[in-house]
């Protein structure tokens, strides 16, 4: 047995040392990072005591007289998330067909579409928000457009992967009965991928509720604007209240979105 499987009984030194070497390298880069990023113990301790003081000041959460303003801002945030996601999905669906291998076999067309989507996806939502603020001015409209553009890239990739994963038998059935390429897409592909796409859109509405809360930090409207302002003027009770509002809103959206997703695609598909 030993002669037949020598690798198992006596691994070479290089293989045995690979794992600890990798761990040591990771740790070394970590230490270098700490030094380069100025992680000094005194600074850490001062910061932690300051953080403790801030935490004390945060209790109890108290909106003061600003509750109606905060609720309106929260409504803005939810509006931004819903509109942005819907716009992104509507524009991404036709483009994703060109990025899917089984719809457009030609690499010459598919490759640039894929790279285009990757480029858009590589830029963070906040950066798009800054660009749109320059174009349409401060406010939630810039937030809607920022989320729409940013998620356009993400949806394009996800939708094209869903389309590539679809069963080809139904498409062949349409073709065999004399259907054109458009008929193949409409009646062969779409019934298969729409439930998947609906699930992904709902997931992104959840995710974009979080994104929309921070988009206000750069001036694009919503609850993030209030949060950034209160942090900068050190109103910690209002800050903790706003954070709790965000947590509750995100939890509610998660719940509703989960129910809708099950209603649309059924529990079987999830399991």
């Amino acid at each position, binding site marked *: 047995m030993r002669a037949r499987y020598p690798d198992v009984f006596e691994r070479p030194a290089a293989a045995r040392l690979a794992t600890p070497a990798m761990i040591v390298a*990771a740790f070394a*880069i*970590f230490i270098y*990072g*700490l030094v*380069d*990023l*100025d*992680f000094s113990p005194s*600074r*850490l301790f*001062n*910061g*932690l005591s*300051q*953080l403790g003081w*801030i935490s004390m000041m945060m209790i109890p959460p108290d909106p003061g007289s600003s509750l109606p303003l905060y609720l309106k801002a929260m409504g*803005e945030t*939810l*509006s*931004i998330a*819903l*509109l942005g996601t*819907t716009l992104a999905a509507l524009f991404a669906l036709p483009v994703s067909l060109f990025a899917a291998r089984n719809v457009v076999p030609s690499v010459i067309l598919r490759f640039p579409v894929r790279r285009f989507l990757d*480029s858009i996806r*590589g*830029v*963070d939502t*906040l*950066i798009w928000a*800054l*660009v*749109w603020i*320059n*174009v*349409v*001015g401060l*406010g*939630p*409209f810039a*937030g*809607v*457009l920022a989320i729409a553009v940013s998620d356009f890239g993400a949806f394009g990739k996800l939708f094209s992967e869903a389309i590539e994963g679809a069963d080809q038998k139904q498409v062949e059935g349409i073709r065999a009965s004399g259907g054109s390429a458009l008929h193949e897409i409409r009646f062969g592909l779409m019934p298969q991928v729409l439930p998947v796409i609906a699930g992904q859109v709902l997931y992104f509405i959840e995710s974009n509720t*979080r*994104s929309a*809360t*921070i988009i206000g*930090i*750069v001036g694009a*409207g919503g609850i993030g604007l209030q*949060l*950034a302002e209160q*942090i900068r003027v*050190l109103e910690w009770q209002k*800050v903790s209240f706003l*954070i709790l509002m*965000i*947590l509750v809103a*995100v*939890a509610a959206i998660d719940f509703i979105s989960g129910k809708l997703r099950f209603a649309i695609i059924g529990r079987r598909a999830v399991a």
Partner: protein
Amino acid sequence: MTLAVSILPEQQLAVLNVAYRKAVARKRLRLTAGAGLFVAALIVASIGAEVNLRTLFTYFGNFVSYFDRILTLDNGQRVWTNFGEWFWGWHNWLKLLAETLLISYVGTLIGAVFAFALNFFAAENTSPGPWLRFLVRRLLEFARTVPGIVFALIFVIAFGLGPMAGVLAIAIHSTGALGKLFSEIVENADMKPVEGIRSTGASWLSCMRFAILPQVSAGYASYALLRFEINVREASVMGFVGAGGIGQELIVAIRKFYYSDVSAILVTIIVTVFLIDITTGWVRGRLFGKEART
């Protein structure tokens, strides 16, 4: 030879047709109601988000001309005609980019370690007690739900301006995100090895170390690498709130209308994200390849 097709009596057909039409009508009605609700929600959202289509069409020229401006140098030529002029600050930008990568690396590593420590308590099948599981899950939920940049805003005030705030913000956010993913992997693990280890009298810690860890370590590595990719993007905007990295330079360029600098820094960020994606994909392939062989 012809095949005999049996046709049901007229009354029976009529009943079936009525039932079918009712079912189709009910389904169509539900679909119409759902679509109506969705459109109504969109309209309310449009009002809330102050959507103004006239504004959009008026300013869309601004959008196009904005891209025109960021692709033009100060001397009026296109940016690609003079790379030296376009990337005049490349040395400083590369330094800041390295800082961004370090922020995301250190933050991800700290987050992964804490997530690893906490996820066994959060998983249903390995948690020592239900109250501990509830507590740890709420903690991870809080860390995951509050956006990282909010933590960065608070830490900038507590720890001062600079990359330390960014690292801690990313670390906490990654703890929440990875903790959830790790605990889901653990919940999918086979419990038979745990029973085998426990039957020899091993402690809870030994069960985790020798029965669960070999099953889930590949998933840990994969998710940690994925989180690193995400954190590179997140770290690139930490500078917006003073938490270090290239975002600081970018927001200065955008707000001071240094148009060609905006496009140069954006290209730098996009290329870096591409390279990081390729690198982590390669590393993941190597890890899984090795895992599959053993």
